[in-house]
């Protein structure tokens, strides 16, 4: 029996409405109590002036293995997660081969076990080969341990397929994650369509492409009673629609990535490929709507949308580079910089978006410090000032728009199942 006491920290657990200075006691990999404890423990961790919370969950991550190991592996991605204070990730199925069958899902789980770092929850493809045409073997994927379904960065363009997927997944009470975009409207696009794209002569992706797709998915959630999760939303119009759908009691949830509530399309004036993301960086009115959506609960979760790429893939001409940011190691500090520091969210709100928010959508028993729960814990030093340095990333992808940013706050100690797996 190994016991651990994390002493004197500000324990924040939104799943139980807890925000109090207390000791957190763990034993044999499980949470025992939150309170004051005098009994001696095998391991003592001083958390004075620290925030102690459930291990962070990143529900939208690409680990690239199998098939694209030059960009990331399950082991490097899981190590990057821990360095970002993240104890659980949900990984996208657009590997090579695609996770559209039982063996592929089992491979991910096996490799994650071998790495022995963060918890990895695979997502299964909605359609075979993520091609949007034929449903994947959803039932068998569920049996293999898949928690939800998505065609990753490929929008589910065919409304009929989306409808059938929602009906079919309803049998297993699993959500469909969709990247909302109308392909014909964003085809060939590099950035948000607005004044800046006009000035730069770069092909734009109109916000309407996202709005239309979100509207369609909400309508299909209504007709099927299925669970729709909208990935990485970024537009004012989608946030408005999701707010109304939730008020109407539909089973619709949404997530957002830090770069989409932090950066604007103006950044593309540098022609720096690290600002090429999908959905694209938008304008001030969209950013304000994103913040409002986070504040009023329209947006349930914050995810990194981790899209790591080997350096040679991102150091090319703008129209040739792939979309995306290596985000695991900046998820927390950028969320603090953009949401806590300006006072948009308080700590319990932010922690909720990074713990029980995603856990509820994924349907996993994580993101809580309830008695008896797996002892995944992140200890955050909210005051430490540091500079983001992409060359120090554990991820193989150094593609970040935040390189060189001076930030405050980072994960200091991370425990998975009661064991310290990362420490600054």
């Amino acid at each position: 029996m190994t016991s651990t006491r994390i002493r004197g920290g500000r324990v924040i657990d939104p799943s139980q409405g807890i925000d109090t200075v207390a000791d957190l006691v763990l034993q044999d990999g499980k949470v025992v109590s939150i309170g004051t404890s005098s009994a001696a423990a095998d391991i003592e961790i001083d958390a004075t002036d620290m925030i102690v919370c459930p291990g962070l969950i990143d529900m939208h991550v690409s680990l690239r293995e199998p098939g694209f190991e030059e960009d990331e592996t399950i082991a490097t991605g899981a190590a990057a997660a821990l360095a970002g204070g993240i104890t659980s990730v949900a990984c996208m199925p657009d590997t090579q081969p695609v996770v559209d069958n039982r063996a592929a899902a089992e491979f991910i789980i096996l490799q994650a076990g071998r790495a022995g770092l963060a918890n990895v929850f695979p997502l299964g493809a909605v359609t075979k080969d993520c091609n949007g045409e034929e449903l994947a073997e959803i039932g068998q994927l569920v049996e293999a341990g898949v928690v939800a379904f998505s065609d990753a960065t490929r929008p589910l363009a065919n409304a009929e397929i989306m409808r059938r997927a929602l009906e079919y997944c309803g049998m297993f009470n699993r959500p469909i994650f969709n990247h909302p975009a109308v392909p014909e409207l964003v085809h060939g696009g590099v950035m948000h369509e607005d004044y800046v794209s006009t000035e730069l002569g770069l092909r734009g992706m109109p916000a309407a492409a996202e709005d239309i797709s979100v509207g369609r998915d909400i309508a299909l959630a209504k007709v099927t009673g299925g669970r729709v999760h909208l990935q990485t939303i970024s537009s004012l119009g989608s946030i408005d629609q999701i707010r109304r759908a939730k008020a109407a009691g539909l089973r619709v949830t949404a997530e957002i990535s830090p770069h989409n509530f932090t950066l604007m399309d103006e950044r593309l004036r540098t022609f720096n490929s690290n600002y090429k993301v999908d959905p694209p960086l938008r304008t001030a009115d969209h950013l304000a709507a994103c913040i409002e959506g986070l504040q009023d609960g329209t947006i349930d979760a914050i995810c990194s949308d981790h899209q790591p790429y080997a350096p040679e893939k991102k150091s090319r001409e703008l129209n040739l580079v792939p979309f995306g940011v290596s985000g695991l190691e900046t998820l927390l500090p950028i969320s603090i910089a953009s949401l806590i520091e300006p006072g948009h969210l308080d700590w319990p709100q932010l922690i909720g978006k990074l713990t029980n928010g995603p856990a509820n959508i994924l349907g996993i028993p994580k993101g809580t410090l309830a008695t008896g729960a797996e002892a995944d814990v992140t200890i955050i030093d909210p005051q430490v000032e540091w500079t983001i340095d992409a060359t120090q990333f554990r991820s193989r992808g150094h593609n970040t728009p935040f390189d060189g940013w001076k930030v405050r706050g980072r994960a200091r100690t991370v425990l998975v199942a009661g064991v310290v797996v990362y420490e600054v």
Partner: protein
Amino acid sequence: MNFVTDTDNSIKKRWTKRHLLGLEYLSADEITMILDQAAEFKRLAEQGETKLGLLRGTVVANLFFEPSTRTRTSFGLAAKRLSADTVEFSAAGSSLVKGETFIDTARNIEAMGVDQVVVRHSTPGAPHLLAQNLNTSVLNAGDGTHEHPTQALLDIFTIREHRGTLQGLTVALVGDISHSRVARSNIWGLTKLGARVIVCGPATLIPQHVEKLGVEVATNLDKILPELDCINLLRIQFERQRSGLFPSIAEYAHLFGMNGERLKTAKDDVMILAPGPINRGVEITPDVADGGHSVILDQVTNGLLIRMACLYLLNPKNSP
């Protein structure tokens, strides 16, 4: 052959920019400096001084990642007129095809001792990428649908030559504004020098929020025609079109093509410009292209002078 090594240096002394990435990044004063330098070269040429020694001992690399006979020839000739050595590079048959990156290729060429790089590329921002990664001076010879500064400068030079000033003139850019780097550079240059600019074309070829660039938008050419001092007929780039941006070439020519009939409703001294190569019978009919209002051949001549001026002012060597 008459080598002139000591032209009037006063403009070069005032010039401070290292790169020419676009007219967006130049002030009205800097644009005027280039025009004045080109005018000086024209004066010398008219005196018979066609070969100048100003860039002797320097190397200009022409990096054309996208084919363009005209611009390439014009730059090559401009460099020779200034006595620079030139290195020619085209993407076809290069190591780019073998997967070498764009930046690697440029770095290798720079390592051969190049002082100036002239770059044409199909991606907006490619010259900016080079400017960030190379030590030489970079001259944008057209980057995708972003900018084509020397083309706009020669258009503006040609107008100034005929009318004395840009101030107060109304200039229309007609055609595919969305996909035109010539339009963007013209808009920056013309507005900075005080012209009123109207962009005109099918609504599907006019980009969102273009009016924030300081221009007016029109979709009916016949309505604005009587107000125009200059009409710049942009080429419809069939290869750049996504399908369905306008119904047919015939309809385009009907609504936006410049023909003799239409010309009758324009001002008596209206100037017709076209950054070639033109699609005869589409943007412009032959009678107009070869008629008295057309300055298309002046544009070609002036292009050489403008490129000489840019190469001379931007060359880091032989500074006075």
